[in-house]
């Protein structure tokens, strides 16, 4: 039987905790100066330069109308996306979790971007599905076909 133990990074968007599979994550950085771009979708904050590469910064707060956490330590979680990197602004990075307790939930809950969650001793945390999250809008805006974007992600 397949061992489903995976590593996840737990973070906060507003008050709510989420996890995302660690293999999608390239790096975590502190907030940086963001250059705004004309004509970008409203959840795209802008771009920034990181070690000679261009990084698109995304804020789910804008997309899903989440309040920023006042007392948090904001970070940017960087996902690699083909040759593009995408940074997601989060309110706090909590810790790394390793577990195999995964459960599926009906997809109509939570904007259709949560399909699974992990079960820990004290709590349940929804898993943010990267594929669905970055498919349509961002991929189009980055001039990539949806399939290409997703398959690039799967190449890990």
């Amino acid at each position, binding site marked *: 039987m397949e061992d489903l133990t995976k*590593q996840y990074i737990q973070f906060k968007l507003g008050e709510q905790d989420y996890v995302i599979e660690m*293999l999608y994550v390239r*790096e*975590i950085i502190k907030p940086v100066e963001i250059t705004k771009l004309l004509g970008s979708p409203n959840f795209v904050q802008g771009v920034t330069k990181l070690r000679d590469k261009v990084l698109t910064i995304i804020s789910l707060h804008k997309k899903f109308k989440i309040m920023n956490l006042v007392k948090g330590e904001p970070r940017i979680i960087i996902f690699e996306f083909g040759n593009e990197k995408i940074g997601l602004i989060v309110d706090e*990075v909590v810790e*790394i979790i390793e577990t195999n307790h995964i459960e599926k939930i009906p997809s109509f809950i939570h904007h259709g971007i949560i399909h699974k969650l992990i079960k820990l001793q004290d709590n349940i945390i929804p898993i943010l599905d990267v594929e669905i999250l970055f498919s349509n809008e961002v991929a189009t805006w980055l001039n990539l076909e949806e399939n290409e974007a997703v398959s690039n992600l799967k190449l890990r």
Partner: protein
Amino acid sequence: MLKQYFQMVPMLHDVLFGKGAVALYDCEKFIEMKQGSRITMPIKVGDIIPESSGAYDSIHQGKRITQEFGAEVYGVAYYTIAYPIVTNGEIIGGIAIAISSEMVYASQKLQDMSHELASSMEQISAAIETIAISAQQLATNGQNVSESSMNVNIKAEEMDEVVRYIDSVACDTKLLGLNASIEAARAGEFGKGFGVVASEIRSMAVASAGSGRDIRKLIGGIRKLIGHMADELDKFGGNTQEVAASIQEIGASVESLTQTAEQLAEMAEKL
């Protein structure tokens, strides 16, 4: 002959400040009488001289007779002094006064009392001097404590800076540990060892952050205590000033009391 002594009666009465009774008598009866404000004798002009009285003895013994009576009779202890009046070797009558004992004792007592007062005043003055010095010392000490607590506050702030630094190091360490774990995962099998190291780094970060919180709590506690101390010192300072003011007032009172005592002593000596 005795008639000439009539004018003596009001004179003697005045000498006693009107407080004593004066009586003039011949060999049988009282012929002139002036009561005192402090002594009222049950005698009026024309009364026969009682045999037990000093007046009687003065006529029959021919000498000055003094008697002392307690307060049971007239409500006030009193003296009587009776003088026989002799003319040409013959006793023709006498003159007597009755005064409250207070007047006799008064002048003796006054001198003693004024001396006691003077020496008490000296003691009080000396005590006040000591208190004033102590109060001064107290104020100085209070000042020192105030300064010390200010210094402690400054140190607490410096400690705060250190804690802030610890916090920032813990923060950066955590980030480093996370990224190290991410790299270790990317390296697959080869990254396992490094993954352990990364884990340890993250634990260190958590521990540092915890220490930072503890220290901050302690500093907070110290600051609160200093705050209380400062409040107490304020009260203390206020009290010390009140004490100093009171001491000054007492000092002034003692001054004027001493002057009064000195005047009293002078008067007592002249009595």
